[in-house]
């Protein structure tokens, strides 16, 4: 019954949506590895919030990795969804990098901001991992 309903939805969708879904970019190991790396680095940095110098260095690395992720996904055909996600993650990491480099941040801010990056990267990792093989 559930499948039948879903099939009905498909036939009521526009041809473009079906075309986009059928020809969407496949699962890419490098894409998955990059987002996993960003999440892991943010998790590691969370533990170093007491050391402002160390955590700032790690936040800078997270930003560079996000830029690398964005650059990697950009020219893969039919990969618009990953491009949109990478753009937003870059905005988040860039804002974080700027705050950390401006002045010493509070422990609460450090943990909360890195948690935002971890959660966002985790959300992205889940959907990137489900791309068709």
């Amino acid at each position, binding site marked *: 019954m559930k*499948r039948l309903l*879903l*099939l009905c939805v*498909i036939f009521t*969708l526009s041809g473009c*949506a*079906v075309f*986009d*879904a*059928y020809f*969407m970019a496949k699962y890419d190991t490098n894409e998955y590895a990059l987002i996993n790396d960003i999440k892991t680095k943010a998790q590691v940095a969370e533990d170093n919030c007491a050391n402002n110098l160390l955590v700032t260095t790690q936040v800078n690395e997270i930003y560079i990795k996000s830029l690398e992720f964005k650059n990697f996904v950009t020219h893969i055909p039919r990969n618009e*969804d*990953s491009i*949109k*996600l990478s753009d*937003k*993650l870059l*905005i*988040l990491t860039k*804002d*974080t990098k700027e*705050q950390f480099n*401006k002045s010493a*941040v*509070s422990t*609460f*801010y450090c943990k*909360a*901001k890195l948690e*935002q990056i971890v*959660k*966002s990267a985790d*959300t*992205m990792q*889940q*959907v990137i991992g*489900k*791309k*068709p093989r």
Partner: protein
Amino acid sequence: MTPQELHELVNSYKVAVEQGQINKDEYVSLIYGINVMEGINDDAEGLLLKEQLNTILNAAIDAASLFA
């Protein structure tokens, strides 16, 4: 992340700024981050829907090929 979880995060930031645990600049940055996170959630939902549609289409094509 659910809207409920996002709402809880916003509240915790509000409490932190009221208690002086974070300054105004940091509060603004955290709220901005929440907005970006919402955008990421929306885009991720869109991608997930597309993936499900892809699975169904492939299953339909496989089923049709059995009768061909």
